[in-house]
């Protein structure tokens, strides 16, 4: 995991324009934004921005585009609250406020030369997608790569065309599963952890990157542990209530950690104690 980086705007958002809007599923969409004039477009996979809709409010949204492309900033967002529903109404040319990027990132340096197993559930694939772009771009530097992705239903699964194209290209193993199938679904049915037996990786040289609902992450950690992947080689991305993103507001604390600053990506053994305490 790599630490946070200085951000010039701890309080005031920059105003940016929407370059592209794409509907992903019935409740999820992707916005491509012009990066702010100052600060450039660079971000590290796993980081997030605070997006502000005029007069409505602000929400933390992970970056889900290609970190090496240098184009617009890509955010895949689920419309579930007042702010995200307002974000869903934005179209190309509209403006919004943006602060960031904030937070820690996935351990792409430490993972070099190792097998990389990405396990995600639901919207949890969005913060991991930049990792997939990075791994593909630097394919030779990594060992085996497996993506295990679980969604509620085929209609809820994100980026399916892209994932299948990557699978067809043979660059990585893509295992997909849903809780509820439909007649068109020819991939797996069942919990994402049921895919572990089919994932091709060497436990002694694997790094696990996990993002999804907390229960799913707990079950996933147990699957890794069963196979001998130590907690020191597991990384999780956590969600907490965030207002400021810079450690001032206190909302996102988990034990000694501020999820906004010290996370959202944590090495599992470093957060385990508090992650496992109920209502911590």
């Amino acid at each position, binding site marked *: 995991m790599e630490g946070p980086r200085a951000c010039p705007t701890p309080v005031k958002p920059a105003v940016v324009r929407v370059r592209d809007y794409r509907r992903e599923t019935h409740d999820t969409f992707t916005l491509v934004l012009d990066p702010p004039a100052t600060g450039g477009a660079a971000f590290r996979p796993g980081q997030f921005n605070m997006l502000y809709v005029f007069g409505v409010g602000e929400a933390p949204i992970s970056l889900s585009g290609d970190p090496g492309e240098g184009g617009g900033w890509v955010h895949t967002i689920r419309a579930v609250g007042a702010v995200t529903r307002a974000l869903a109404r934005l179209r190309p040319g509209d403006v919004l406020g943006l602060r960031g990027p904030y937070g820690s990132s996935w351990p792409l340096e430490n993972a070099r030369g190792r097998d990389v197993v990405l396990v995600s*559930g639901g919207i949890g694939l969005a913060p991991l997608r930049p990792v997939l772009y990075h791994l593909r771009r630097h394919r030779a530097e990594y060992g085996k790569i497996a993506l295990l992705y679980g969604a509620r239903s085929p209609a809820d699964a994100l980026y399916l065309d892209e994932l299948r194209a990557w699978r067809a290209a043979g660059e990585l193993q893509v295992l997909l599963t849903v809780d509820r199938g439909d007649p068109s679904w020819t991939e797996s049915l069942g919990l994402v952890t*049921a895919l572990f037996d089919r994932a091709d990786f060497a436990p002694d040289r694997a790094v696990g990157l996990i993002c999804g609902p907390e229960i799913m992450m707990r079950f996933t950690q147990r699957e890794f542990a069963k196979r001998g992947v130590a907690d020191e080689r597991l990384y999780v991305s956590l969600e907490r209530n965030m207002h400021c993103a810079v450690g001032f507001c206190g909302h996102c604390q988990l034990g000694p950690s501020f999820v906004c600053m010290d996370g959202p990506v944590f090495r599992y053994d470093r957060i385990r104690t508090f992650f496992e305490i109920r209502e911590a």
Partner: protein
Amino acid sequence: MTEQGILGVFAGHKFLSGLSERHRLLLAAGARPFTAAPNQLLAKEGDTARCFYLIQSGHVSLGMHTPDRGVVPIHTVGPGEEVGWSWLVPPHRWQFDCRAVDEVHGLAFDAEWLREKCELDHELGYHLLKQLIGVLANRLAATRVQLLDLYK
């Protein structure tokens, strides 16, 4: 497939890991290689469970038939996993439709033969039960997590 070939599959299959040499040989005598074409039905809900399957390659979809939606797929079994516990639990009737998703290769055991072996040799029976209960426990836990509808 020769007995050597079958033993080779045994050695690599998770379900049979930890089995003694004696039991391995004993089971190998009853194992029969099978291939199922895509969409082929391996078992039909309600039928007598005459087989126990170990999957080597390919995927099997477990589903239940409903009047309004046809067969609703519930769970997918893949390489290194097994299909069927109805052979062990009276009244020995399949609980689900089991259909090959793609071309499936594996080993099949005759249910009656396997039950008899387990009755005669409780050590073998205990081993198979222990493996089976692990599979059942995982599937039960997974089902319960799915009931929580995590991604909503």
